[in-house]
């Protein structure tokens, strides 16, 4: 019995994005679509264990959900005008086929539209993420609250607000043109990357909880790539997420402290994810249409290919960062490039590159951490200490602060040692 429940559960989760997306197209309303899907799931739980699963669970759920919602609308407005389509209460295979034919031609744009609705630019980023996790992934409010380390009522409110704002905006329901589709795809890719980062930036004792966000982002990216199998940037995004998430088991030590890439136990990296990520990078690059996700994935691939930290091909990584900086000229990319340059040409040259970034990144924890580390390598301990103190003041988490304190301890120990020897 548990096996059956487990199978049904997986099938319902897997069918969710396509089903909700189609129901949103019918009803043009998130709440109605969600309720219709819930009703269809309840009926599935009642009938599937006895009758066995339908051939196409999503088509079944769309069909049953749509009819259930139409029944509901009719009951509410008995005197009002009837919706155009006749209700069908009993399903046989012929009807399932019909439902499927109805939807196959649409479902790609349906799902893209649904994802796109969730990342409407009128919504703040944290609302976008919460809404996508609730509507598309089907996570419960409690699960989302746990992942955000936040209270359930706060998340509930965030989702309600997001839905209200979306209800006020006009979402175009006609199929998008090629240009519009490309724009939607890029917006949705950004949202998926943000979901991932929300989970990936987690540190300390809560990291394993927040890793669920990374897994959810990977699931969404996989869905997107299945729908758009020939988009190099979506391949790049998927590869990037896999290659980064593969390192998760090695990123924190037993006490929850940050372990830098150079010091990670690479045998803990997930070989299966790395293999898939590398295959996707290779496939993406064949298209010769470079983009920021592909460049980042290519950098992650260089790290993944190095068996030991000292095997890392830093010149190649520095070159990839230069390419990335041309595609995405942001100060953070420039900072990462400086780190790569320090590995190839030494800390002095990298420190020079940091000068022009100071204004833009003055409030960025990582900037001061990098600056401190470079100064430390140059033996300028006093200036390094100042930079590290600035970093601590801007740390987002206890683990980040602890990591910098460790660097300062090392500095002090080194300078003590130097003093002792000079005596």
């Amino acid at each position, binding site marked *: 019995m548990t096996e059956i429940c487990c199978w049904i559960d997986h099938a319902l989760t*897997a069918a969710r994005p396509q089903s909700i997306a189609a129901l949103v197209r019918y009803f043009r309303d998130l709440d109605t679509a969600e309720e219709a899907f819930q009703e269809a799931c309840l009926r599935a739980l009642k009938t599937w264990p006895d009758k066995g699963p339908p051939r196409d669970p999503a088509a079944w759920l769309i069909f049953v959900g749509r009819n259930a919602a139409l029944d509901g609308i009719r009951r509410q407005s008995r005197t009002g005008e009837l919706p155009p389509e006749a209700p069908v209460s009993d399903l046989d295979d012929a009807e399932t086929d019909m439902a499927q034919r109805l939807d196959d031609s649409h479902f790609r744009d349906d799902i893209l539209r649904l994802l796109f609705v969730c990342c409407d630019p009128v919504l703040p980023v944290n609302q976008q993420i919460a809404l996508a996790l609730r509507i598309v992934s089907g996570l419960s409010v409690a699960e989302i609250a746990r992942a955000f380390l936040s209270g359930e009522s706060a998340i509930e409110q965030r989702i309600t607000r997001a839905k209200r704002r979306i209800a006020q905006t006009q979402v175009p329901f006609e199929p998008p043109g090629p240009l519009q589709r490309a724009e939607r795809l890029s917006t949705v890719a950004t949202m998926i990357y943000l979901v991932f980062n929300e989970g990936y930036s987690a540190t300390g004792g809560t990291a394993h909880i927040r890793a669920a966000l990374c897994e959810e982002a990977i699931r969404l990216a*996989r869905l997107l790539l299945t729908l758009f199998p020939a988009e190099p940037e979506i*391949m790049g995004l998927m590869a990037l997420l896999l290659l980064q998430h593969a390192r998760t088991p090695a990123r924190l030590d037993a006490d929850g402290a940050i372990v830098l890439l150079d010091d990670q136990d690479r045998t803990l990296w997930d070989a299966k994810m790395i293999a*898939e990520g590398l*295959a996707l990078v290779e*496939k993406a690059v*064949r298209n010769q249409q470079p983009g920021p996700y592909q460049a980042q994935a290519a950098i992650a691939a260089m790290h993944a290919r190095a068996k030991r930290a000292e095997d890392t091909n830093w010149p190649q990584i520095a070159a990839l960062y230069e390419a990335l900086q041309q595609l995405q000229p942001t100060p953070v990319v420039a900072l990462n490039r400086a780190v790569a340059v320090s590995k190839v040409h030494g800390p002095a040259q990298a420190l020079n590159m940091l000068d022009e970034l100071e204004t833009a990144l003055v409030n960025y924890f990582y900037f001061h951490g990098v600056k401190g580390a470079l100064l430390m390598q140059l033996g300028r301990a006093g200036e390094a200490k100042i930079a590290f103190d600035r970093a601590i003041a801007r740390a987002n988490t206890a683990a980040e602060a602890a990591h910098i304190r460790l660097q300062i301890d090392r500095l002090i120990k080194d300078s003590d040692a130097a003093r002792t020897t000079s005596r």
Partner: protein
Amino acid sequence: MQQFAILCYHAESVVCAWSKEEDDAVMAKLSVVQDKLVKAGKLGPVARLMPTTTATTLRKDRTPALVVDGPFAETKEQLLGFYILNCDSLEDALSIARELGEANPGGSYEIRPVAYINTATVPGLAAAT
């Protein structure tokens, strides 16, 4: 002795959503059966393919053959055979596929990386033709 191939089909959206624990549990149960088959001298190579998102398709029904990103998606053609190749890169695999395609035009080849392979072949299987 007749040789049989068992081709595995399942909904990828479901299988790819398995947690590592669920996936490991399935693989463990399968390996119990496989071990029995090895002892009985019946098991040939077993492979698990990477997800279809890693697939590339070579359409060899035209000249020159056309490389398309994504899995083979036609329903009018049927699976008739397969190769397992050792390659340096995807490009290498594609050029081999092109050469094979020139020898036997028409239809398509789907090129997919292998995620896991158990090459412990049975002596009888290796010799049989």
